[in-house]
């Protein structure tokens, strides 16, 4: 057999394998085992340790490009938070699309299902432009910066906002980030100044550079992409889309590994051939 040709498989076969690896577990979940990492446990405990009636600020700092990765994570956090007696304030500094995503997440989680009320237990403050300056201003005085919520209601009419005046009142900040600077913003502006606890999760691409913050304890754990979400869903005993996705993840990684190995068998083939033939590669 000609091993060399393994280097030149038509890319379409790889695409097909990839798509099948994604689709099969969605139609027919396999239920592969999943080990929960310490990192995820840290995030879970940070949420569990919020005092009764505490205030959580959830910042969805991503848009439609990263919805697939972070939307399930946001929903997992919301499902867990609504089981507890906490107030959830959602605000975004990333872009105009983020509050829309929050709205979608609320639709799929369902506020009423948990016996919560908008304005009392949850509020969506929408998007605040100005990046770091806005984050700093929000931490110093929320009521001076924000006048109305996403739907145009004055925040003086929302009972939940009486609990949140400065970043000191925040019991936990959950940052869902598609860019590395977002968790850094909250660490810099809120944690160093007001001692706010920060946790959350990010897209896989920016996770590795954030590891130093986790090991130094500045971030109370941080969920990497869909993997973290799946572990979190398992811990909070609320399985949803991410766990199903994990089977696909496994198979996709397998496709990558097999593709790399096959190609290298091909490389070995041409090496052997050149040695036998005495020709240079």
């Amino acid at each position, binding site marked *: 057999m000609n091993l060399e040709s393994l280097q030149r498989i038509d*890319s379409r076969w790889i695409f097909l394998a990839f798509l099948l690896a994604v689709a099969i577990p969605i139609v027919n979940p396999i239920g592969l085992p999943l080990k929960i990492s310490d990192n995820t446990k840290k995030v879970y405990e940070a949420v569990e340790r919020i005092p009764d009636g505490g205030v959580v600020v959830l910042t969805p700092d991503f848009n439609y*490009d990263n919805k697939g990765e972070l939307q399930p994570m946001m929903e997992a956090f919301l499902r867990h938070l609504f089981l507890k007696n906490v107030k959830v304030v959602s605000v975004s500094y990333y872009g105009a699309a983020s509050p829309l995503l929050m709205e979608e997440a609320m639709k799929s989680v369902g506020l009423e299902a948990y016996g919560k009320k908008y304005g009392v237990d949850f509020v969506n403050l929408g998007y605040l432009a100005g990046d770091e300056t806005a984050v700093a201003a929000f931490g110093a005085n929320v009521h001076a910066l924000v006048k109305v919520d996403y739907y145009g209601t004055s925040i003086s009419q929302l009972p939940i906002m009486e609990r949140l005046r400065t970043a000191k009142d925040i019991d936990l900040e959950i940052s869902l980030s598609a860019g590395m*600077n977002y968790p850094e913003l909250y660490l810099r502006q809120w944690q160093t100044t007001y001692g706010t606890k920060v946790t959350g999760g990010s897209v896989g*691409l*920016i996770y590795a*550079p954030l590891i130093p913050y986790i090991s130094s304890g500045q971030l109370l754990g941080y969920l990497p992409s869909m993997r973290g979400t799946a572990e979190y869903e398992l811990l909070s005993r609320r399985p949803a889309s991410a766990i199903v996705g994990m089977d696909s993840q496994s198979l996709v990684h397998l496709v990558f590994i097999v593709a790399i190995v096959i190609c290298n068998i091909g490389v070995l083939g041409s090496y052997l051939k050149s040695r036998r033939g005495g020709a240079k590669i």
Partner: protein
Amino acid sequence: MNLVISGRVADFVLFLIFCGTILALTLQAGRGKRFELKKRLPALDAISEAIGRAVEMGRPVHYTPGGNPLHGVRGTHIQMGLVICGHVARICARLGAKLMVSVATAEQIPIAEEIYRGAFVAESRPEVQPDVRFYGAGDPSFGAGCLGTIFRERAAVNMIIGGSGSDFPIVAEGAFRAGAFQIGGNANVFMIPLVVAACDYTLIGEELFAAGAMLSEDATQLAGIVANDISKVFIVAVILLGVVLMTAGAPIVLQLLKL
């Protein structure tokens, strides 16, 4: 009274050292001292070779500096992409290749056209109209648009040099399918692995910033690169000194850096 913001004293001192080295050597070069770089970057030699091949094949060259705002977090990467674009455009003009430039953010359009026009005028081909394409703000539309352009125009060379973001794999795959030779350059640490995996020749990290100076062959610009080499020796010395003192139980360097 504090003059320097507390916590940034070390930053400021380091900044002054690096800038001072560069300024000093640039002044020397301005007085006529020659600076030469011994290390060649293969990617730079590949540029004119690839363009030459594109001319032989009669197929166009595609260039993109990638997608980030000029004033944003990775603004300088894009600016560097535009600088190299100028050099590439001149080579294209000289060899008679058709050049297409795709830009990902709208504020690059006018300046890219200026660079394109300037390069062709400098090589006395003022009749060529700038071919700068824009596909709507956002990674997905840029990726899709680039893919379509490269594929339909059957580009022979694809250069993604600058600060391309998540759109990179789409552009690179489109170019591969069109059978294009690829030269990639990136200084975004998240994207460098993909660039290395996908491109035939690469300019990664600092090489991207050095490339502009090397292509210009201007002694005053090369002086900056040499100055950076001195800064690197200095950084390594600081690290080693710090480690030795730290191991001996005296974290002096660490305390100084944290000032």
